[in-house]
Every structure is written in C-alpha cells, then in structure tokens.
C-alpha cells in the first residue's frame, strides 16, 4: 500500500489556527459495570484524516457512537467547529454535518440505491420530487468524488464495496463535512480498499474531515495525518502519523511490546502426514474451483497457501476437511486414504488425527447463540470425557474450558457468556483451543487472524508455531501475504484453482509472490 498523496501536506500549521472540527473533552460512558470510555479527550483538525486505533473492546466504537448520537455520554463535552453541542440522537449529529459509515452497513437490501440515499432526508412528503432531486445530486457526487453507483440497482445486487460507496454517498447527500468510518476495509478486497482510500484522499482535499477507525496499522500509516490510540477505554496517545511507526502504535495499543514478525526456529520436517493428489473440487454451482492440485505437508512444517481470495482456497480447505466431496483425486491423511469410499465425514477425519480451524468462524466454526463452553466441545461432544452417553457431563466440560480460558487468555473469562458477545479474536481463540488441544497430527487453518486484534494475532501465530515445533503438520491458508510469509516454512501460490508456484519464504520477495498470485508464471516473469 503506497502513501496516498496529500497536496497540502504542509497545511496543518495553517489549519491549527482555526477551531478543530471535533473536540471531545473528558467523555465518560459506562454500560453497567463496564467503563467503556474514561475521560476521553480528542481533537480532530479540519481537513485531515484522523485515525483511531485500538484493539476490539478498547472503546473506539462506543466513542464514535456517542459522537453520532447513538449513545449519550454520561459526562463530558462535545465541541463541533469550536461550539459546544449536545447530540442526543442521530438526527442531531446529521444536522451538525457529522455522517457515519457503519461497519455493518445500515442499508435496506431490497431498496434501490436512490431510495436508500434519500431515506430519512426526503425533503418533501411525496417521493417523486425527492427522488429526482437525489438523482441529479448523486450524479454530481459521483463525478466529484469517484463514487459511481447505478442509482436504480437494488442494494442486494451490489458488491460489498459498492454497498459501502452507497453508505458514503448517504452521508455526503446529507451534507456531511465530518465523516466517521468504522472499520471500513474489513469487508473489502484489496482493490476495493485502494479505491476507498483514493476516495478518502479526494474528500480530504475537498476540505472534509475524516475519522477512520481501524485496527490495521498499514492503513493508518498509508492514509492518516494524525492518529489517536485507545486502550481499555482510555485515550493513550495522539501523534502525527509521520512521527510514528507501526511498531510504536502496536505497543501503545496493546500496552506492551508486540512482535509484528514471528520469531521461529528452522523447521525440522519429518514424515509426510497429509498428501493431496490431483484433487479436483467443484463449488455449489458445479464450477470447478480446484483443478488437479497435488502437494504434501510433513510433520513439523507449516505449508502456507497464498493467493487472492476466491482462487479456490475455500473449496480446497473444505474438501480436505471432509466438508465437500471432491470431483476427483485423493486425500491421504496420516496414511489413510479418505476419499476412496466417497464422502469422508469431518468426524471420521478427526478420529484420524486431522483438526480443522475453518476460515469463517461464524459460519462454520461456532454457533454464536451457544455459551462459550458449549462451543468448546462442539464436534467432540460424544467423547467419553464429556459424558459420552445420553447426557452431557456439563461440569466436566465447563471445568475443562475454564482451563483453556486461562491457557489461551480468552477474555472475558466467563465460560457461560454467549459466544456472540466475545470479540472476534477471543472467538477465534475458542475455536483454536478446541482444535489444538485435541493434539491432532495435522492441523489445517484457514484465515486464522481475520478480524482479530493485534495482541491476539501475536498469540495465535505463536500458538501455530508451537504446534509445528511439537511435530505437527500444518496447512495454513490465508489471504494476508504478510501472515503467510512470516509463518510458513514453504509457500505454495494458488491461482485460479492451480498451484502456480512454490517459494521459500526466506528468499522470496513480495513482488515475485504478488506476480504469482496475479497469475503471472515464473517463466514469464523471468523474461
């Protein structure tokens, strides 16, 4: 990610003379016993992109919800353009020129783009006039900011990136001068994220103020002018971006030194534990997604599969994990061929020593309405130690999970909390604890740190390396190239359902891998 150019990069001295766009003074907010925001001070200069970073649960979203009138602060002052204001609901915020792009979009799926944009800001009682006014206004905004969306398309037919554009258009249509974006890139492809950053740069150059909430430090470094760090409900620092580094920010966020690179010894590979031969897999629509792939994973090594999302990784993972029946080919787990007699169920694979951390924990890894301890035995509930017979041994299951909570530092340490109420990182730890503590011979892991905090990422990475050092065979699939490079002992690059290259993480450079992931083969690249 390159730094987006800012023509007025030298402007902050001039801007500081006028009142800040947003100033928060000693904001406090509690939810019952949880003190989500403690004495928060924040000052955001006009015409800048101001980043707010912090781990999940640090209080970023609460703070922004207060600014947007979703919650009311228990105490403290909010100043907009130098004037003290009271914001008790979203319409107050909107009339002050504050717009928000939520992490989960606030769109009506079966409405058109146009209907969503005017909703709540229709102007007149009859729709006809407001819609035609909005149509020409949308054209202007699209032209000015590069936010093209066809106004008559239904939201449900748009890609996630386009839906986000509609959210931004909604805010701009309401005349927002201050735009808050909550984790805007979590759902975007890299290309969509780049486009978003170009749009944000344009908006800033037009004089808009942007507050960007994220936990991706690369984005902070790439686009923001200043950055504030929150930890456990407090604002711990505000610094100009040019005077800080990802390492320094990570330390501020977590409160201790964080290694952004994984520290690991040389791998000592043993016997082949997992072998995949000419595996061909189709997706639900019958389209062939994995085309005759062969590779093997040895005990004591991590094999990383790199690739742009949607190149067959999901189908490959599902086929190996016994969730999807391959069209052709063989999967050999621990010396047992598991594909010859048709569908090898996930349960059977587990007995053969294969554990699976699925790439989408919410869809495949957890039942979010269950209490955490229930999820911690899911898939293993028939084992004798949990009762085995008709009734579950609830006491034993909970006691075991309490041990894991300590071991994996799962927070909050409450086995009876609903899984949905844990943060992404802690949910992932619940899944990892469940799969790793079975002591499997083979671990396949998909997107282990998607939507996970920096502190938890470090923990999860170390845990994976520990498994490797204990002589387990690990297959890692991730779309985060950094993660693949820092964890893997060997890298396989997948493109359009084929393994197009193998690389040594120590020697491979990012450019070479990028070309492979984009489908440019070794030979062509060499020419």
């Amino acid at each position, binding site marked *: 990610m390159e730094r987006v150019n800012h023509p007025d990069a030298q402007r902050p001295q001039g801007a500081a003379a006028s009142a800040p766009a947003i100033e928060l003074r000693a904001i406090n907010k509690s939810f019952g016993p949880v003190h989500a925001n403690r004495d928060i001070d924040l000052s955001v200069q006009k015409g800048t992109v101001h980043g707010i970073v912090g781990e999940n649960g640090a209080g970023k979203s609460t703070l922004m919800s207060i600014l*947007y009138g*979703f919650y009311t602060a228990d105490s403290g002052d909010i100043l907009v353009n130098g004037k003290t204001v009271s914001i008790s609901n979203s319409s107050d915020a909107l009339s002050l020129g504050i717009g928000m792009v939520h992490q989960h979009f606030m769109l*009506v*799926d079966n*409405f058109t783009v146009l209907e969503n944009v005017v*909703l*709540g800001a229709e102007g007149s*009682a009859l*729709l006809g006039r407001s819609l035609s006014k909005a149509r020409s206004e949308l054209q202007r905004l699209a032209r000015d900011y590069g936010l093209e969306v066809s106004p008559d398309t239904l939201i449900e037919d748009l890609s996630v990136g386009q839906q986000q554009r509609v959210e931004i258009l*909604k805010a701009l249509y309401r005349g927002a001068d201050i735009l808050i974006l909550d984790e805007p890139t979590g759902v975007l492809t890299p290309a969509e994220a780049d486009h978003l950053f170009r749009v944000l740069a344009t908006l800033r150059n037009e004089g808009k103020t942007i507050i960007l909430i994220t936990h991706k430090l690369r984005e902070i470094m790439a686009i923001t002018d200043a950055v504030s760090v929150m930890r456990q409900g407090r604002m711990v620092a505000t610094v100009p971006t040019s005077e800080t580094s990802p390492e320094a920010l990570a330390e501020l966020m977590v409160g201790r030194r964080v290694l952004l690179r994984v520290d690991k010894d040389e791998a000592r590979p043993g016997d082949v534990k997992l072998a995949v031969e000419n595996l061909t897999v189709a997706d639900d629509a019958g389209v062939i997604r994995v085309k005759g792939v062969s590779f093997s994973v040895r005990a004591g090594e991590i094999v990383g599969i790199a690739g742009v999302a949607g190149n067959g990784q999901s189908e490959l993972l599902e086929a190996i994990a016994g969730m999807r029946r391959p069209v052709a080919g063989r999967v050999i787990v621990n010396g047992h061929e598991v594909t010859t007699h048709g569908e090898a169920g996930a349960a059977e694979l587990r007995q053969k020593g294969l554990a699976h951390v699925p790439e989408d924990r919410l869809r495949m890894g957890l039942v979010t309405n269950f209490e955490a301890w229930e999820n911690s035995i899911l898939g293993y509930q028939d084992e004798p130690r949990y009762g085995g017979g008709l009734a579950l041994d609830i006491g034993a299951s909970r006691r075991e999970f309490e041990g894991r909570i300590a071991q994996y530092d799962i927070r909050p340490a409450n086995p009876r909390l609903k899984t949905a109420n844990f943060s992404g990182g802690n949910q992932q730890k619940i899944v990892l604890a469940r799969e790793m503590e079975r002591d499997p011979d083979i671990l396949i892991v998909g997107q282990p740190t998607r939507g996970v905090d920096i502190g938890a990422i470090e923990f999860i990475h170390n845990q994976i390396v520990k498994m490797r050092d204990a002589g387990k065979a690990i297959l890692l699939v991730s779309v985060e190239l950094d993660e693949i490079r820092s964890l893997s002992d060997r890298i396989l690059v997948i493109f359009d359902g084929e393994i197009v290259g193998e690389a040594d993480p120590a020697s491979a450079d990012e450019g070479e891998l990028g070309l492979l992931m984009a489908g440019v083969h070794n030979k062509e690249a060499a020419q």
Partner: protein
Amino acid sequence: MTYVDLILVLDSTVRLATPLIFACLAGLYSERAGIVDIGLEGKLLGAAFGAAVVAAITGSAWAGLFAGVGVSLCMSAIHGFASINLRGNQIISGVALNFLAAGLATFLGQSWFGRGGNTPQLPSGARIPTITLPFANEVQDVPYIGYFYYELISGHSILSYIAFLIVPITAFVLFRTRFGLRLRAVGENPKALDTAGISVTLLRYQALAITGILVGIGGAYLSIAQSAGFTNNMSAGRGYIALAALIFAKWRPWPALATCLLFGFLDALQFRLQGVALPGIGQVPTQAIQALPYVLTIILLAGFIGRAVAPKAAGTPYVKER
C-alpha cells in the same frame, strides 16, 4: 349457473370480501412496519362488539363505527406497547388479544344484554346505510349491463366502497410517499432508519394506528353493516384468513385486493353450493368448501406463486446494540 346466479354470487363476494380487505390492508401496514399482527382476528371481533353495543344504545350507526374503531385502536395500542416498548413476543401478544376479545365480548354482552352474548337486533337506522348509485333503479331492466350495474356495482354498504378505495390509497402511500418509504424501511432494517435520524418507535406506532383504524372499520362492518347486531364469535376466523391473504399477496396492496376477492368468492360459492348436488361429485360437504381458502393458500404458497418473503424485520423487536 345462469347470468343472474353469477351476478348474485359476485354480489355476495363483494359483501363477504369487504371485512377481509380492511383486515388484510390493516395487517399490511403493521407487517410492513415490522410488527406481526396475529391479533387481527381479535380486533375484528372487539370492534364488531363495540360498534354493535354503541349502535344499539345510541341508535346511531356512526357512533357505532367510531366506537368500533376506538376499541380496535385501544387493542392496537396494547399490542404496540407490548411489542415496541416492552419488546415482547408479537405472536404471544396477538394471541392474548384474540383470547381477550373473544372472552370479554361474550362476558360483557351477557352481563349487559342477557342474550347469551349477542347484542340486540339493530333497527335499520342504526346500521351503516347502503348506497344506491345514480340511475341504478332506472337501468336495472336493461339486459346484462343494466342488471350488472344495479346488482353488482350499486347497492353496497358505504364501507364496501371505502374498502375498495383504500386499496389505491394504500398503494400510493406505500410506494409514492415519504411515509411509505420509511414504513417499508422500518420493516426491513429498522437500524437504517434509526441511523438516518428517524424514530423507529414513533413510526411503528403510526403504522399500528392505521392498522387499528382499518381493522376497526372492518369489524364494525361485520356487526352494523353486514348484520344487524353482534353475535358470538362473529369474526369466525376472518382475521386469520386476512393474514393468509396478506402472505398470498406478498404484502402488496393490489394483490391483497385480488386475494381477498378470491377468498370472498370461495365463501360466496360455499353458501351457494350448500345442498346443491354437483354433477359427477354429488353433494359437497360445506366444511370442504369452507376449508378451501386455507387449502388454496398452502398449495399455492408451496408451489405456484413462489416464495413469499416477509418483511425482514417482521416479528423482531428493535433493540439498539448493548
């Protein structure tokens, strides 16, 4: 079946469909706003009772109509309080209202009038008048067209004409006005509305008020227009039929009208076919024909009209995060 028979069946179709149209459109407003209203049945019954009582006491049909609407509005308010403010289960609230209406109407009717729960027979002055359209009597002897005009188009209760008028009005409100846009939005994704600075609570109460008024008119129609007084359980499942019609119509006004007319027609046919032996089949039990609307709904929903997708937020109380 002769032409006259056909016109007569269609004529009673209109009469039987009128309360269905009111109840169905009433349900449309509340469900489009995200509130499931299984209590339509109870509101029909409550309104019918209230209207008949007041009409009997005052001798005024209009006072009766107001009373009916008032009862139904109160019931809507209770449903709203339970499902919007208290975030209760909407089905349970609706079912409770149904029981309440059925029990209370019989109990109050018996203690006030002592006629086994029925209200006294209303004189014609205390009933909602019918309208004879201009020239209806003059042209009734003109073959086909004249008779069609006289028997089918003219001579219905004012409320029937209102029912038919509400359909285009509803379609307009729903798809062409700001209120309609917000109403549809609040039933699909209330959060989108809340973050746009619009009160979800207020909008849902507004929708429930419209529901109360419409189903109240429908109930009053039963007791003081179609009949001359309240009889026990006189709504007879029409509230449920209206809900079936709403699903069948996929929550859209014009199809709702068509469906209500279809169900009204089946009802009219059933009266007509009582005791009539059909060629090749013989005498069809009344119950079989009475079951037709329900059977039809199941069959058509299962395979013919495709999936009926309810407003996404229907049935779920709106709670801000945390």
